[in-house]
C-alpha cells in the first residue's frame, strides 16, 4: 500500500502516513455496514455452496465430509442435467430476444406520444405488477387449458382444440408476458434520453431510415437494450414457477431441477444441487460479461 509513496520521501512523510492511516480507518468505518451485509448474505452462502459442491451426498439427504468431483462429473455427463442447462439457456435466449423485439418498438411508440399519453401507457405497462405473479400465471393456465379460454373460442368458431398448456410454447408465453415490462422500462429510459435530431442529421447525411437506426439510434440506446436483456435473461434462466405451472413436469428448467434436488427428491441431494447452482452462476456471469463487452464497445 505504501509502495507508491516510498520512492518519493524516505524521512519526512510520517505525518502524512498517520493522516493516510486515519483516513483509511474512517473509510473502513464507512464501508463496514456494506461489507458486513455482503459477507454475511452473499459471500458466506457462496462459500457454503462451494464447499458442499465438493462433498459426497449421504443416504438420508445428509452430507458426508468426503472430497469428491462426482457432482460435477454427473452434471456434465447425465443427459437430464445437460439438457436442463441447454433448455434453460435456450428458453432464456428466446424470451430475451422476443421481449426485445416487442419492447423496442413499444418503448419507441410510448416515447413519441404526448406527455399525457406517455404516462398513461407507462402506467399500463406497469399495471400487471399490481397483481401477484403467481395469480397471473394461474390466469394463463386458465387461458391456455384444454377447455380454457382459447380452446373455447376455437371451438365456438368450429376449429379443433389445440394442446396449449404443458408445452414449451406455453412456458415461453408465460415468461415473455411476465418479463416484458423489465425490458420495456430500461429501453424506454434510454430512448427517452436519445436526441432525435441525431436521426435527422443521419438522414441529412444520406442515411436511409434503416441505416440511421442501425448506425445512430441503436448504438446510442444500447445501454437500455443491454440492461433490459440482463434483467430479462437472468431471472428467466432461473425460473421454476412458470415452467412448473405452464409446462407441467414436461419442460424442466434448471430451477425445477434445483428445487427438486434441494427439497423434493428422495433423498435430497445438496451437494449436487450446490454444484449445479455454482455452474449456473458461472455460466451466467460469463454470458453477461461477454454480452456487455460486445454491446457497449461502441460507447468507449
Amino acid at each position, binding site marked *: 500500500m505504501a509502495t507508491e509513496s516510498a520512492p518519493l520521501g524516505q524521512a519526512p512523510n510520517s505525518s502524512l502516513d498517520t493522516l493516510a492511516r486515519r483516513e483509511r480507518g474512517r473509510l473502513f468505518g464507512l464501508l463496514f455496514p456494506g461489507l458486513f451485509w455482503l459477507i454475511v448474505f452473499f459471500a458466506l452462502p457462496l462459500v457454503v455452496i462451494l464447499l458442499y459442491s465438493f462433498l459426497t451426498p449421504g443416504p438420508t439427504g445428509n452430507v458426508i465430509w468426503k472430497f469428491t468431483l462426482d457432482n460435477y462429473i454427473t452434471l456434465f455427463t447425465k443427459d437430464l442435467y445437460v439438457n436442463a442447462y441447454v433448455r434453460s439457456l435456450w428458453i432464456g435466449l428466446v424470451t430475451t430476444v422476443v421481449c426485445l423485439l416487442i419492447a423496442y418498438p413499444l418503448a419507441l411508440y410510448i416515447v413519441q406520444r404526448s406527455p399525457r399519453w406517455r404516462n398513461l401507457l407507462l402506467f399500463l405497462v406497469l399495471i400487471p405488477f399490481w397483481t401477484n405473479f403467481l395469480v397471473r400465471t394461474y390466469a394463463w393456465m386458465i387461458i391456455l387449458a384444454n377447455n380454457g379460454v382459447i380452446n373455447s373460442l376455437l371451438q365456438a368458431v368450429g376449429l379443433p382444440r389445440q394442446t396449449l398448456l404443458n408445452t414449451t410454447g406455453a412456458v415461453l408465453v408465460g415468461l415473455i408476458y411476465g418479463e416484458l415490462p423489465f425490458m420495456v422500462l430500461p429501453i424506454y429510459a434510454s430512448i427517452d434520453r436519445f436526441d432525435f435530431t441525431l436521426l*435527422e442529421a443521419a*438522414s*441529412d*447525411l444520406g*442515411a*436511409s431510415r434503416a441505416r*440511421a437506426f442501425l448506425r*445512430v439510434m441503436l448504438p446510442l440506446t444500447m445501454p437500455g437494450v443491454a440492461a433490459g436483456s440482463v434483467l430479462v435473461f437472468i431471472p428467466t434462466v432461473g425460473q421454476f414457477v412458470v415452467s412448473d405451472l405452464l409446462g407441467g413436469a414436461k419442460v424442466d428448467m434448471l430451477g425445477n431441477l434445483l428445487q427438486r434436488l434441494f427439497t423434493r427428491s428422495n433423498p435430497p441431494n445438496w451437494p449436487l444441487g450446490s454444484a449445479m447452482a455454482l455452474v449456473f452462476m458461472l455460466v451466467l456471469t460469463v454470458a453477461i460479461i461477454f454480452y456487455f463487452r460486445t454491446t457497449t464497445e461502441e460507447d468507449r
Partner: protein
Amino acid sequence: MKDGYAIEMRDIVKRFGDVNAVDHVTMEIRNGEFFSMLGPSGCGKTTSLRMIAGFEYPTSGEIYLNGTSIGTTPPFQRNVNTVFQSYALFPHMSVAENVAFGLQMKKVPREEIGRRVDEALDMVRLTGYGERRPRQLSGGQQQRVALARALVNRPDVLLLDEPLGALDLKLRKEMQIELKRLQERVGITFIFVTHDQEEALTMSDRIAVMSEGKVLQVGTPTEIYERPNCRFVADFIGESNFIRGQVSALNANDVTVTDGKGLTLRGQMVQPLQVGDDVYVSIRPEKARLSVQRPSEPPNNLFPVTVDRVAYIGSDTRIMVQLGQDQLFDVWEQNTRSTVDRDAYWQRGEQGFLWWPAENALVLKD
C-alpha cells in the same frame, strides 16, 4: 450551373394544424450566394429551412433544387446538407467518424474517405482532432466539426440554422468571419438562418426578411437597410424614427405627408402610394441632423425642437428631442471631436433645429 438558382421556393405554404408556419413564400436563391433568412422568433425560418432539407414537406407549393422539383424527396436523397443549431454530432463516434459518415453512406471508397476527411478537418482548422470525441471539444470546435461534416459531402446547398447561436459573443464574431471566408473559398450556396440582424448584415450577399410566415423583402444588406419596403423591415433592421401621417401630395418620387397636428414632412416613395394613404415617415437616427443655428440653406424638412434626453455612449451621443407636441425623435451624433467640455454636448432643455434631406426619409406603409 454557376448562374441560375440553387433553390427556388414557389408559393410555399406549410401548415401545422391551424398555424400557417410558412405562408405563400416565394424565394429564389442564387448559385453560390450567401443567403440569409432573418426574422423574429416564430416567423417560419426554421420551417422553411427544414422544407429545403426535406425534414418537412410543404402543404402546398413547390421547391426546386437546381431546377429539379424536390417536393417530397426524402432528405437522404437530396444533395443538401444541414448544420444544426445543436450541432447534432454523433456522440458515440469520433470527430473523424462523424465527418466520414456522409461519405460512408454514399459508399465512397475508403482511401478517398480518409483523404477527404483530412481535407475537411484541415479546412475548419481541426487537423489532429480526428480521434477525439465530440464531448471533448469546446463549443466552437464542435461547431466546426458540424461544418466539416456537412461540407465534406460537397452539397449543392448548405443549410445553417442559427449555427452561431450557442457561442459567446467574441467567438461568434470570429466564427462569422471564418464562415464567410469558408463560403467564399468553397463557393457553395449557403442558406443561413438567424434572428441577429447584425450577423445577417455583415455576412450575407442577400437577406430575406420574414415575419409571420411571409417574406417581406429580399435584398442586399444595403437595400434592406437603406430602402426597407415597409415599416416592419425598417423597424426590425436597425433603428428608426416613425412619424405617422397621411399622404397629402405626390410628385413623382417625392411624397408630402401631414401628421394632422401641424407637422408637414417630405420623403421618398419606395412603394406605390396614393393621396390619403395612412403612412409612416421613417428616418434613421444617424441620418438626421441637429444644429443650434437654423441652417443657412434650409432643407425641406426643418423643425424647431427641444432636447428631452441625452445619452453619451462614447462613440456617439444619442439625443432624444421633442418634435411638435408629443413626438419624440431620436438623433445620433458621432463624437468626431475629442473633448471633455460638457458644453460641447447637447443639454437637456436646450433649443435647436432638427433637419434632414428628403432622400433620408422614407414613406412606408404598415
